[in-house]
């Protein structure tokens, strides 16, 4: 039972950073903008969040600072692709590399330091329920916020006028422009939201999940986020499922080590990435489904005046 509690509660925590970044990327991609700079934005958010928490002692300040910097970085991508019509792939990669550089510059003098770590939220009687309480109700606030974010993203995209506008722009910015929708503004908003969420996801890694700063600590999670949105066929529940699958696999890695099984640790570290991608690739084979949910203009240069 202890193992199960460990895996479930650990999965929620391990997936939280991915959920933030993936919901942000999902919204940006739904509007038709591919952002390949997520890895860099998460890294920048992680460094910024860590430094801000170290200096101010406030987690709120830390997450806000990370969100603002992630947002600013992504708006560079928005300006390059929406105003100057740069190629989305090239621009995203460049901004991603810039982000990685920026993260090491910001965190340079904090390398290897730690902060206190985000405290668990005390939910009173809920937290005291045996097993269930230990699994679900002894988490920090960001875990709950990430779950709320999943529902909010799903609701906005599928049930509101704003979501309709985002989906329409993602399918055909030309038609949307002809209808008088503010294509650039909405897209910039979506990309900026994506950057802010990536920043928060990164900050969660460095201040809560493993409360220390080490360069390269995002370790490809930004790329997993990009893969999650695509293999999750741009459907919110599927993308969230992918994030939790990744989280549980990375927990499995730790548990197996705890059992003392003699499996090379390198092989185990690869496991979450491999399993997540194979799993999502298998469930995303339905072409009709993809065509219905994928933003048709994703990655294309904007052809409106």
């Amino acid at each position, binding site marked *: 039972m202890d193992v199960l509690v460990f895996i479930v509660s650990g999965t929620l925590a391990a997936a939280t950073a991915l959920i933030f970044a993936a919901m942000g990327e999902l919204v940006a991609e739904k509007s038709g903008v591919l952002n390949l700079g997520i890895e860099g934005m998460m890294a920048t958010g992680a460094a910024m969040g860590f430094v801000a928490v170290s200096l101010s002692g406030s987690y709120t300040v830390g997450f806000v600072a990370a969100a603002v910097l992630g947002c600013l970085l992504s708006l560079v991508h928005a300006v390059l692709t929406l105003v100057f019509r740069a190629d989305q792939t090239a621009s995203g990669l460049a901004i991603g590399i810039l982000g990685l550089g920026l993260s090491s510059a910001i965190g340079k003098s904090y390398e290897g330091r730690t902060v206190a770590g985000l405290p668990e939220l005390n939910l009173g009687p809920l937290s005291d329920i045996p097993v269930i309480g230990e699994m679900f109700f002894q988490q920090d606030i960001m875990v709950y916020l990430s779950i709320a974010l999943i529902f909010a993203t799903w609701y906005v995209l599928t049930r509101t006028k704003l979501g*309709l506008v985002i*989906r*329409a722009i993602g399918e055909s910015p030309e038609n*949307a422009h002809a*209808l*008088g929708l503010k294509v650039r503004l909405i897209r910039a908003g979506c990309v900026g939201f994506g950057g802010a969420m990536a920043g928060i996801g990164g900050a969660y890694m460095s201040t809560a999940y493993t409360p220390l700063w080490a360069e390269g600590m995002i370790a490809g999670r930004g790329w997993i986020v990009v893969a999650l949105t695509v293999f999750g066929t741009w459907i919110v529940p599927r993308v969230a499922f992918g994030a939790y699958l990744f989280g549980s696999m990375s927990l499995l890695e730790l548990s197996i080590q705890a059992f003392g099984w003699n499996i090379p640790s390198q092989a185990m570290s690869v496991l979450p990435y491999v399993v997540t991608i194979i799993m999502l690739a298998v469930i995303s084979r339905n*072409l009709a489904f993809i065509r219905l949910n994928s933003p*048709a203009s994703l990655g294309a240069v904007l052809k409106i005046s």
Partner: protein
Amino acid sequence: MVETPLLRLRGVTKAYPAVLANDAVDLDVMPGEIHAVLGENGAGKSTLMKIIYGSVRPDAGTVEWRGEQVDIQSPLKARDLGIGMVFQHFSLFETLTAAENISLAVPGTIADLSTRIRAASAQFGLDVEPDSRVQAMTVGERQRIEILRCILQEPKLIIMDEPTSVLPPQGIAKLFETLRRLASEGIGIIFISHKLDEIKALCDTATVMRGGRVVGVVDAKVEDARSLTRLMIGREIAAPSHSAERGDGHAVLEVAGLNHTPLDPFAPALKDISLTLRSGQITGIAGVSGNGQDALTRALAGEIVQGSQDAGTIVLEGAELGADTPDQRRTKGLHFVPEERLGRGAVPIHTLSENTGLTTHHAGLVNWGMVKLGKRRALAQGTIEAMDVRCGGPDATAQSLSGGNLQKFIVGRELALRPKVLIASQPTWGVDVGAAAAIRQKLIDLRDEGAAILIVSEEIEEIFEICDTIQVMFRGQLSPPVQAQTASIDDVGLAMAGDFDALVLREAAHV
């Protein structure tokens, strides 16, 4: 008392670097009037409509809206004034439902709009199901949504840009009924077309344009097709001469049991297609596009290679083509003119001479891997002369030619190789009247030399004009052939909507 026109243009002029698109154009549209704007491709109709709809600014001239001078700076402004437009190429979002599409342009919740959509559907005879997705809809349904979206914005003037070009004949009658009902509510309608019979059937007044100028404002009911044509193109065009079949009529290309499921899940699968093309005959495939014509022409041309057991056979002069590539099929005498001129029929940025080499390199153009440039150039020059292609010579790039001229060139390039079988997809789509007539005549000439020809066309008039036998394609199935001379245009229209029996039974009655 004289009524104030809804819209009055005076001296509207718009120049582009190469052409004067509109030269001092005047136009008056009254409330409740259906006003035709008639002209060939390139006559300046589209530019004029873009000026009225605010997406292009005129260089000179005035626009009056209900008696007051206005400056229409953007489509948004046009909509505010009460000007709506139904585009020729639809601007709908495929993955959204009808109601969602409409809600992007009309305020209100989806539930509210669905009620209003149903009400307006009933009022104007526009069948639309608000909750169904555009993706699965026919062209006619899509057009009805566009019109509904326009109507729900409560416009005073609706611009219809070539609305009938995508509809089967029965759909056209229905559309006209709707437009008449709208006009009776006092809405002005500008109806753009180059189909004379439609204008005579529907419109009150016609403004005829040629070369950017208004060459006449006439009463559409009084004029006849000949006088309108003369106004529109400035000369008379001879209908292609269409003699009786030539050649021995032996089967040149035989297709049996062709099945194909395209990768695109929303494109129809080809179901058990059988087709025989005979020497000295033109076979026409009628049907609304998107019913599998694309997959069929690709399969015949070799762009799709059949793999599986039930894929069927394609036999050219007794020899199975199997997995031959388009190139190998060309050397055997099967040629293909695709629907898209730029990008598939010709490389836009290459010269005509280079484009000639793409499909004719077997005709002695290559020696030890080296291209004989002089010979290729001569071949291109020959095509230009034979087809009367208006261009800057063999060194002009493909993209510098107008649609009609490039199409003449592409058809000519294939004709120069004396094909045994020619497959042409929408050979006169978007081509001006003069070029279309020239291309049709060349196809008939080729037939008279004994070639077997397959024409895929959405334009039912074209099919009847040049084809000997007609087959109809609907949802991936091909109807049995009927004789063009005895078939009725209405039966073919019914078959285009899926009723093959109407076509076949009537045909049997004739025999």
